[in-house]
């Protein structure tokens, strides 16, 4: 609003800008106790700041002690008889719920005596994810390792051969289902998203229209609708007599949905590649696909890795929506274990536990994505 004056003063102010900023760094006095000094400069350096600090302390004082006494000091940690009776007598949180229901929450309705199988499968996948996170292991052998792990995991989950009992997919549930849907969703969506992104940037109008239409259509509707469509309409789309698994239908829905979002991330990467790269490839006479495969995509996809990790995080959170179409993912399994009238009053504890699982995965991945962004930038930084 006062831009005209601003412009005039900016020019003269630029010269003196050094002065006030060095004045802020007052010489530390040696006698003052260090934390006090820190508090003075970080919490009480002005009157409004001091008021805000006091308000925040007041808020914490109101919230933290009751929370601690509920969650820690007055909490019921174990239930001797396997019922919620001990919790109902107590005034605090009922963590005994975890002791009783953790298997149901983590593995859903998978046959109880076979729980070691999804547990082992989940552990294998998490270990592979952790390994793949490190650049040191980004070698071709990793792909073979993944192939092997996928086969082993499929064998563990389905069984049916080599001495394991057959477990059909409607019985799968809990964390393995959440992880599997998120991972497969993103992996299957990836190739589709590359095709869509290239199509959207193509200079052939019909192809561009088809790809743009698909991306915008899918991004304009909620995942709930897509999943609902997948669960009620896919059976109608297929020829009579052909049925597909509920899990597979949800996976197809997730994949089609994720692909549209991922395509936009890939397009962002493609746009970041200087035009000269493509022109150089054209000048060398490379045909379209070789130009993309050898010149453009290797550069673009490296830029896209952090957004892909971010997309994976939202995909991981979005898998909770399969609850709505009747699959037993981690959230639905948690909800199911809270349906027990004995434990129902302690739903907050159950959801906190599930939230913690989601949080650990998503938070570590978002930190990883930030680290990776810096790490990948080192190669091109000058």
């Amino acid at each position: 609003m006062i831009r005209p004056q601003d412009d005039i003063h900016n020019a003269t102010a630029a010269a003196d800008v050094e002065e006030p900023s060095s004045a802020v760094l007052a010489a530390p006095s040696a006698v003052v106790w260090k934390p006090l000094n820190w508090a003075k400069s970080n919490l009480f350096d002005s009157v409004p700041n001091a008021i805000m600090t006091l308000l925040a302390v007041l808020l914490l004082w109101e919230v933290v002690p009751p929370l601690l006494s509920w969650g820690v000091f007055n909490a019921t940690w174990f239930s001797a008889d396997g019922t919620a009776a001990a919790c109902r007598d107590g005034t605090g949180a009922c963590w005994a719920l975890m002791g009783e229901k953790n298997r149901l929450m983590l593995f859903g309705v998978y046959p109880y005596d076979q729980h070691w199988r999804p547990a082992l499968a989940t552990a294998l996948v998490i270990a592979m994810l952790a390994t793949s996170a490190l650049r040191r292991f980004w070698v071709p052998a990793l792909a073979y390792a993944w192939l092997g792990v996928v086969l082993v995991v499929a064998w563990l989950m389905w069984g049916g051969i080599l001495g394991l009992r057959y477990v059909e997919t409607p019985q799968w549930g809990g964390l393995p289902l959440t992880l599997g849907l998120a991972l497969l969703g993103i992996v299957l969506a990836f190739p589709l998203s590359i095709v869509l992104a290239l199509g959207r940037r193509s200079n052939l109008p019909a192809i561009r229209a088809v790809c743009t239409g698909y991306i915008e259509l899918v991004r304009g509707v909620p995942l709930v609708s897509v999943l609902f469509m997948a669960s009620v309409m896919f059976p109608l789309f297929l020829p009579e007599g052909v049925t597909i698994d509920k899990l597979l239908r949800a996976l197809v829905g997730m994949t089609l949905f994720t692909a549209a979002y991922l395509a936009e991330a890939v397009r962002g990467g493609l746009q970041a590649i200087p035009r000269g790269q493509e022109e150089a490839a054209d000048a060398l006479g490379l045909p379209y696909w070789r130009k993309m495969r050898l010149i453009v995509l290797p550069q673009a996809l490296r830029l896209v890795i952090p957004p892909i990790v971010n997309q994976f995080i939202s995909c991981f959170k979005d898998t909770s929506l399969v609850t709505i179409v009747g699959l037993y993912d981690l959230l639905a399994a948690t909800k199911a274990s809270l349906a027990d009238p004995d434990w129902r009053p302690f739903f907050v504890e159950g959801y906190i536990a599930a939230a913690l699982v989601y949080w650990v995965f998503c938070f570590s991945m978002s930190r990883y994505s930030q680290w990776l962004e810096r790490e990948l930038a080192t190669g091109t930084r000058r």
Partner: protein
Amino acid sequence: MGGLRTTRPKTLRALVYSARFRGIVYQVLVVAGVLALGWYLVQNTLANLAARGIATGFGFMGQEAGFDIGEGVIAYSSADTYLRALVVGVFNTLKVAVLGIALASVVGLVVGISRLSRNWLIARLATLYVEGVRNVPLLLQLFVWYGLVTSLPVPRQAIDVGLGVFLSNRGLKMPVPEWHSSYGSVVAMLVIAVIGMVFLRRWAINRLYRTGRPFPWILSGLAGVIGLPLVAFALFGAPLVWSVPELRGFNFQGGVDLSPEFAALLAGLTVYTASFIAEIVRSGILAVPHGQTEAALSLGLSRAKTLRLVVLPQALRVIVPPLTSQYLNLLKNSSLAVAIGYPDLVSVANTAINQTGQAVEGVAVTMGVFLVISLALSLLMNWYNTKVALVSR
């Protein structure tokens, strides 16, 4: 295809190898493939629907819906048509989305600025909020909110918040002024005052640019916006009758209420989206070079004025595009209402689908409506974006 424009090919061989010819062939193949897939799906669907004895077409929209809807902006009874039921759903979706966007923007702005506060404690609290909320699925948060709201005491033991506001497992009840015939002119005065404020702002900025003398248009404008309706209100003799919630039997009568479903959905959407908006605001502010802040401070502007006049207008250019997609996300996430029983569009459409079996039409209507609302919202935000975008001179 790499943009090579050659002269018209002379031989068949040259034709086959020409980028232009190949481009046309590829396009024809893709379009034919898409059409063939569509035709195949439609044929299968028609055959399946015929085999199951399900009707097709939108004829069902005129039939009696026969199910109740918990709440709505417009009047509705189970004797109304499916079309009206769906319209009720659309309005419910819009209601929660509009309120959610407004609240999430405010909370997100406050939290985003707090994350950059020089006050260590405030910054840490804001970080805790953002990192804690955005890494947990919204649906889980909605279940918790809904569980908390419905585990409140029954209306007889409702928590009295004061000022006639009551919290119970039937939702939030609060007093509301009863409509009076003079309120029309009060609202008219409000509209006039708001329009007047827009012109005042234009005049004040114009004068500032011309003469350099500032005019406190915000304060005087706000005085008008609050004052004019109050004057009108007083002239009519201040006819104010409050409709206060009162406990009669097992529930409250009078006042206005937020249903537990709506309250839980609104709280969940606001808290979740605000954490993302906070990050957008933070990155937008960080994108403004620090020299701008230093220059403003050295001119003697206060910290608040620096933020309002120098930093935020520049940050908005970075903030608005991702903010648009967060608004769209909130709109789409409002469809999670179906999981806690708030009768939004998706939830009403699902009921209609379950009753009629006409899944294709139901899903098509849902998607169509969401596409239209999304499009309208992005057009609005794009218009705003062009207003805040850098004007290159």
